[in-house]
């Protein structure tokens, strides 16, 4: 099967272009306490790429120049970026929704308790990786013991109000498949996780999102080394759904890398595909016009398969 995303778009007479940019995603670096096997940015312990305080200050100025509805902070493990607390405080007034990604494990550590208190005070939404209610699947993707720690942290978050019905403290879960297969349909997965987690552990959450793993970085190497790359890419390409294009996140999101450069999404960061084809720093950007073409690669099939990645 031919894998050529640009050609697929052309065959469907589609153009992937920027719409109104409403979300700022900030990747504060690749340093992480975990080294998950599906990680497209190959985050892990010892990675030196971490956003410095000067770049964080530039990001705040950028967010003031281009008002965003949502600001989403990801990594790596954002908890490990020095100055993350200041960044959260300064970004809080600049968007309706402020989201911090977490792998749950780090927040269990007492050293990060002040950060959790700050998130609660500022009503920062937490988006946590939680691939499966099954310990084996979770640990095989994220590392030994992660499932147990995740369950413990989710209980603690519920105890302080995160994820409870009617609470302003959003706790969203993200479930990527634990292997080279497609994700469960989101509404079915959310219903089942909600029922299972309430029944088995009395854990509650706001929403669950299911996303296909993107064949980049560490996950791509795993696909190659296990002989799964060909069939996985074919599955993604065969699942191309033209109706996903309008709602793709890259149309309304701008992604900033740890060193302050702009990309159309976090996957394009990992693939080294800068916004508009050239590396532009947040300090020099003057406009994010609608209609600007979005940089694409063959990894984009992961966002257009089935129900899509929105």
């Amino acid at each position, binding site marked *: 099967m031919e894998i050529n995303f640009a050609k697929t778009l052309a065959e469907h007479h589609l153009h992937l272009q920027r719409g109104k940019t409403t979300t700022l995603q900030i990747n504060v670096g690749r340093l992480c306490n975990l080294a998950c096997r599906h990680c497209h940015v190959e985050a892990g312990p010892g990675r030196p790429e971490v956003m410095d305080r000067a770049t964080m200050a530039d990001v705040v100025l950028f967010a003031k120049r281009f008002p965003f509805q949502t600001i989403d902070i990801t990594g790596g493990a954002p908890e490990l970026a020095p100055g993350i607390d200041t960044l959260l405080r300064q970004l809080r007034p600049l968007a309706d929704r402020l989201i911090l990604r977490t792998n749950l494990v780090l927040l269990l550590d007492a050293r990060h308790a002040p950060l959790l208190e700050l998130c609660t005070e500022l009503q920062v939404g937490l988006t946590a990786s939680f691939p499966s209610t099954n310990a084996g*699947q979770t640990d095989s993707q994220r590392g030994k013991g992660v499932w147990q720690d995740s369950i413990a942290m989710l209980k603690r978050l519920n105890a302080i109000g995160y994820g409870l019905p009617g609470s302003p403290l959003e706790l969203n879960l993200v479930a990527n*498949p634990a292997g080279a*297969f497609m994700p469960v349909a989101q509404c*079915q997965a959310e219903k*089942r996780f909600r029922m299972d987690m309430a029944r088995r552990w009395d854990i509650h959450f706001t929403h669950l999102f299911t996303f296909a793993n993107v064949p980049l970085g560490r996950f791509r190497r795993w696909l190659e080394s296990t002989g799964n790359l060909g069939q996985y890419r074919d599955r993604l390409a065969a699942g191309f759904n033209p109706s996903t294009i309008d709602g793709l996140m890259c149309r309304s999101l701008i992604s900033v890398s740890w060193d302050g450069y702009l990309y159309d999404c976090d996957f394009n960061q990992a693939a080294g595909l800068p916004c508009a084809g050239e590396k532009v720093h947040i300090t020099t950007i003057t406009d994010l016009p609608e209609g600007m073409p979005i940089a694409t690669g063959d990894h984009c099939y992961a966002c257009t398969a089935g129900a899509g990645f929105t």
Partner: protein
Amino acid sequence: METYYNPTDLGKFAEIGNEAPEMAKKFFDYYATVFAEGELTAREKSLIALAVAHAVQCPYCIDAYTASCLEKGSNQAEMTEAIHVACAIRGGASLVHGVQMINSSRKISL
């Protein structure tokens, strides 16, 4: 290595309709209806299919329904339990025929 079973052959399943298209169409339409969400969920049906695949020992079906179960949200523990159900029924079917053996033996024994 040459083998009777080639994983890529599953993708050629539709070719079975080349010589008898009407029957193939009826079969594939029926198949799609069977696996659609109904009183049983699509996830439950995939688990049943996986168990049956092991009972009839069809390698194509095992590959296809392993992926299908995972993609419908089942985990390996649930899938293993489903296979034990197939195993228990298959093994039980052998064992319960022991009653036939006992009956026959009694008939011809002093």
